[in-house]
């Protein structure tokens, strides 16, 4: 990795880009560039084959139809599985998070997922909409999670996935835990540009991808102000 540019792939923006999902790609590229890390971004559409040699994969939110279609194509393609097997980092959001699991519900039917995360998702009785807040798994060494959630799903974790965070505001997976992680795969219900409010997660992905233990600090004054404001706005669970 030392001489080559970091490769960041945004998976299927034609299907999974409900709301500002592009932001995560832009933020990773920006934070790499500010540290002098060369980075290239690729938007891979659902009619293209998925490269398996990139360093970071991003998969976003979407409506039921596109979510089911994306899962079918990724299973048939196999590129993402291969990339994960080779140690690539993945950030998955909402519908993209669900489809990394064993199964999920779309348009009233149970759909097969990619099985990359040990999770299953079904429908909740109510839609979870609003500010989401949580204490991230201490093993990841990150400050509190803040996000905006907007989903009807509930997600159950198996033995081989750990919750990304313990919920302190909002719903997340089930009102208790939020998101999941295993290896270098992260999943969250913080929808859209989750990294805007959580630059430390962006830096975790960059560290995983570059192998660096630490990265030069950036001026995150505005992100810190945003985080304080949104963490205060979340209603305690």
């Amino acid at each position: 990795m030392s001489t080559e540019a970091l490769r960041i792939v945004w998976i299927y923006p034609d299907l999974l880009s409900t709301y500002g999902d592009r932001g995560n790609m832009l933020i990773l590229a920006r934070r790499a560039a500010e540290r002098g890390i060369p980075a290239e971004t690729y938007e891979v559409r659902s009619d293209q084959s998925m490269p398996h040699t990139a360093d970071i994969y991003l998969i976003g939110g979407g409506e039921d139809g596109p979510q089911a279609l994306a899962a079918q194509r990724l299973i048939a393609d196999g590129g993402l599985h291969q990339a994960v097997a080779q140690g690539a980092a993945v950030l998955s959001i909402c519908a993209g998070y669900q489809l990394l699991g064993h199964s999920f519900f779309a348009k009233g039917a149970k759909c097969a997922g990619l099985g990359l995360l040990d999770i299953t998702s079904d429908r909740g009785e109510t839609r979870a909409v609003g500010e989401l807040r949580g204490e991230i798994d201490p093993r990841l060494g990150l400050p509190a999670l803040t996000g905006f959630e907007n989903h009807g799903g509930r997600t159950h974790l198996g033995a081989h996935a750990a919750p990304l965070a313990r919920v302190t505001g909002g719903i997340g997976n089930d009102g208790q835990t939020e998101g999941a992680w295993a290896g270098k795969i992260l999943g969250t219900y913080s929808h859209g540009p989750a990294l805007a409010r959580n630059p430390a997660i962006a830096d975790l992905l960059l560290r995983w991808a570059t192998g660096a233990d630490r990265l030069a600090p950036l001026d995150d004054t505005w992100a810190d102000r945003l985080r304080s404001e949104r963490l205060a706005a979340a209603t305690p669970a």
Partner: protein
Amino acid sequence: MADVRKARTGENTGHTVILTVWQRVVTFESGTLAGVTDGMPLIAKVATSVSKTAAALSRAAGRGDGSVIGGWIGLKIDPDLLAHLAAGRAVALVSGTNGKTTTTRLTAAAVGVLGRVATNSFGANMPTGHTSALAKEGHTPFAVLEVDEHYLAQVIDQTRPRVVALLNLSRDQLDRAKEVAMMAQLWKTALAGHPEIRVVANSDDPMVVWAAAGSPEVTWFSAGQRWLDDSFVCPESGHPIERAQGDWWCTGCPLRRPRPQWVVEDEGVIDPRGDWHLVKLQLPGRVNIGNAATALAVAAEFGVRPIEALPRLSRVASIAGRYAQVDRDGRNIRLLLAKNPASWLEAFDMADQAPTLLSINARDPDGLDTSWLYDVDFSPLRDRPVLITGDRAYDLAVRLQVNQVQFRHVQTFDEALRSVPPGRLEVIANYTAFQDIRAELDRVN
């Protein structure tokens, strides 16, 4: 815009008290009803009177335009009031995610060639607003109403329109609204129950085409469409939609772009006979030429010829404060409303290369979620001084940093005014932020 928020969420606190007061006042007002309410059931007459009076009081009390509260009270007294008020008028409804307020205003101007037109020109686009608008104008032969896309089915049932114009469907506050495909389905179902309606629909938007294509009478228009992200997947078959040179087609089923009868070309519009008409407007931007083309297409369904309507369109200068220019302390302030990604791109297109204030809120009418900021490319602003303000200025600050746009955060509109030199100040704001600034400028229209 507390009125709008309450109407949206169904919270009635505050209005309930006013209702009881107005039930008493109505006895003094019943002499003013001649003409409007002839032939209506008594309850509708009472409701109409209360509606008008409450609207006047709301305005006088500085609570708003009065464009919602009157209708809200009237509908409480008579739930069929809107149907009673619409009866006997030739009605056009205008709906879509973007451009409906402007298109409604232009359509009302165009139909005005034929006679008086009632319209909800303040953008109060739910049944309460329609009721207020019709009650206020008294009896008119025509009505042109902007309709919130969620309420289209209901308003069709109540107003029995002759024409329905469908502009576009794109993401707009998804935390509150139905998903785009579900909205298209609602429209499709609503129209299927009313084959008598003449539909005027946008041939460039696959979602709109799918919703409208089942209707027996459709006039297609092409106003140009910049925002494409929401229609990559076919609503009929789920297959990808291909696009090339303004055309589009589904790769898995017969859905494809119909040939439009009205087409924007250069600074004008081609009508169904093939004649090109220059469109001269005071409203800025190419998007408004598209809105004018739509208005001409709708007005044509009532028998208005473009040559008759165009002079009236050119006299429209601003719409409920949008595009309005205000001079204050040597600054020429221009207000541009941008509600969602598609309309932000349009606002950058319209704005001069001058100091620009961006203001973002995320209250109920705006949608609580600000993630759409990353669907907008702010880089066109790199070449000008940018100020930011509003409830969610920090979200905007982080977004602009990622976009490498320099900015300065100001706490108030006055601070923004003081920090720019004399000359043009462009103000681009989302819905409630726009209303806040408009209030600072004495409810400029």
